């Protein structure tokens, strides 16, 4: 008894007569479909010798029957039942999405992406507005501020981030001092390394690096947490109970990141200055006392104010972007990952764009 599906052909008047044998099933199909395709016109399909047939076998037979307008004979009761099930349904079934030329799809993607970015920006601005309204409502209705939630977030966004942000800023301070001193040495002005480290850390780098770190650590966490809550319908449950998700989820997070950013930024700047100081002490033999004195002389108070003005803005931006992206999660778990990524990317990008604006703005104010 033949085990694998097979067939033999006899030439008939209108074309080949195909006699199948063996088990016409998916598991024993082998290369039968290909060999069948290679045949010329077929007039007859004989199933009387097969030992078994399954849906795939039935499909192959039906397909060949339609292509060659052939007749099927010798089907057993089981086979006939399968063939009948196929014959009854002649409607077209779609299997793939649309298939268009690559350049059309590329153009479409470009367009869709541009519109998506624009919408995302509008969405973030709109979300910020909704958040301000929610805050206003909360204050007007004299509902208690959720201090517990804020403090918990404050812990994860701020306190837990201290070691990593401290270490990062410390190292950046060393790098600025080291690279700066190499350049300044050419003019014999190593002592200005202190100016470089001090002003760069307080005015720009300390805060900027902190913002990037917080966006990566906490902005992503906000998006992922809220996204998961959306998926498990926690957010909807909250709404039905009458708790505003804006008040319960978003405001505490944004509040925490807003309060944390100035503190973390200042802390990061100090760590960078300490790092720079240590390099100056060891590498340039500037004693710490001189270093501290110089730092106090050269850093204008305006640098400090600039940092303190920028920090909460960055904090709001990171918090709002993270929460907004989290709230946009719909449908499936894959979205959580996507939205988390775009929360981080959007937050870092917007922070840097805003930072550029701030730099131009404060310089034209004369805060050099």
């Amino acid at each position, binding site marked *: 008894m033949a085990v694998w599906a097979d067939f033999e052909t006899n030439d008939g008047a209108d074309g080949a007569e195909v006699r199948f044998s063996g088990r016409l099933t998916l598991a024993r199909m082998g290369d039968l479909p290909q060999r069948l395709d290679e045949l010329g016109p077929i007039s007859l399909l004989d199933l009387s010798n097969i030992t078994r047939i399954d849906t795939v076998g039935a499909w192959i037979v039906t397909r060949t029957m339609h292509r060659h307008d052939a007749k099927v004979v010798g089907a057993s009761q089981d086979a006939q039942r399968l063939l009948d*099930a196929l014959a009854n349904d002649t409607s077209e079934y779609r299997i793939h999405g649309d298939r268009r030329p690559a350049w059309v799809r590329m153009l479409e993607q470009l367009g869709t992406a541009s519109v998506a970015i624009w919408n995302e920006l509008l969405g973030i601005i709109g979300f910020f507005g909704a958040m301000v309204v929610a805050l206003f409502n909360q204050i007007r209705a004299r509902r208690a501020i959720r201090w517990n939630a804020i403090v918990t977030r404050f812990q994860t966004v701020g306190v837990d981030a201290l070691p990593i942000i401290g270490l990062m800023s410390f190292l950046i301070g060393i790098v600025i001092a080291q690279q700066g001193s190499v350049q300044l040495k050419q003019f014999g002005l190593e002592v200005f390394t202190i100016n470089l480290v001090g002003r760069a850390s307080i005015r720009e780098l300390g805060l900027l690096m902190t913002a990037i770190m917080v966006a990566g650590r906490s902005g992503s966490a906000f998006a992922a947490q809220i996204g998961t809550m959306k998926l498990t319908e926690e957010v909807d449950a909250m709404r039905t109970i009458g708790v505003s998700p804006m008040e319960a989820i978003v405001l505490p997070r944004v509040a925490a990141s807003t309060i944390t950013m100035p503190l973390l930024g200042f802390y990061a700047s100090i760590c960078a200055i300490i790092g720079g100081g240590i390099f100056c002490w060891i590498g340039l033999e500037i004693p710490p006392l001189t270093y501290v004195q110089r730092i106090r002389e050269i850093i204008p108070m305006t640098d400090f104010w600039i940092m303190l003005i920028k920090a909460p803005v960055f904090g709001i931006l990171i918090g709002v972007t993270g929460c907004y992206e989290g709230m946009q999660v719909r449908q499936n778990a894959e979205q959580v990952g996507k939205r988390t990524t775009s929360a981080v990317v959007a937050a870092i990008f917007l922070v840097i764009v805003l930072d550029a604006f701030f730099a131009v703005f404060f310089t034209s104010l004369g805060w050099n």
Partner: protein
Amino acid sequence: MAELIEPEKFDIAIKVRGLCNQFGDAVIHEDLDLDVRSGEILGVVGGSGTGKSVLMRSIIGLQIPTAGEVEVYGKTLDTIVDEEESRDLRRRWGVMFQGGALFSTLTVAENIQVPLREFYPRMDSELLDEIAAYKVAMVGLPNDAGPKYPAELSGGMVKRAGLARALALDPALLFLDEPTAGLDPIGAAKFDELIRELADTMGLTVFLITHDLDSLYATCDRVAVLAEKKVIAVGTIPELLATEHPWIQEYFNGPRGRAASGSNDALTRADRKS
């Protein structure tokens, strides 16, 4: 190449002997025996936590039993060393999980093609598409369901898509874990009908875990009752009704049981079979 399994040669498709399952201190099964005959639809019922899903997972090798033996078509999964042999056994069954367990990043059609691609990597894509379309039609999904993602489907359609994927390899053995849970009564009744129809057309052996009394009456040839850590009774519904066991009596003769038996004539299934 190892000798391929020929399911139709077996009268008993699944043979479970002395199965024990234990999680920490919690004993789920103790010395459990069960036979599933070829070509029957066996309903498995039991209270919550009696280990219906664990039993299914033990049979398909997702759960390694503490003790005992599970034979599917004469083979025991944990003693098979040959990769070919275990693949051959695995493709004899299709499993539909409770939540459908469709891969969320793939479309319905791609979901159906996953097992085909896995077991028949050289199959040409045209035939793959045709088979997917066929299965979509077979389980009664609408024409345009193929390119849709699971998230775009309704609960009933997810179940049907899950069934289509379970049937992708034309298995001889079908495991269904609460297929009608979460469906509305009309959808559930249609699903029952679909299972019955497919089982008849394709000569399937079905292992059906359910809580749905209507499903039991409408589809099952025999019912196995899980309680007290073992299968306390197996038989047709009239046979079970004749037993004295209090849980069985309460289950079938409780208010819901009586309602279900009223709407479905319990004898029709047995009659159609004989």
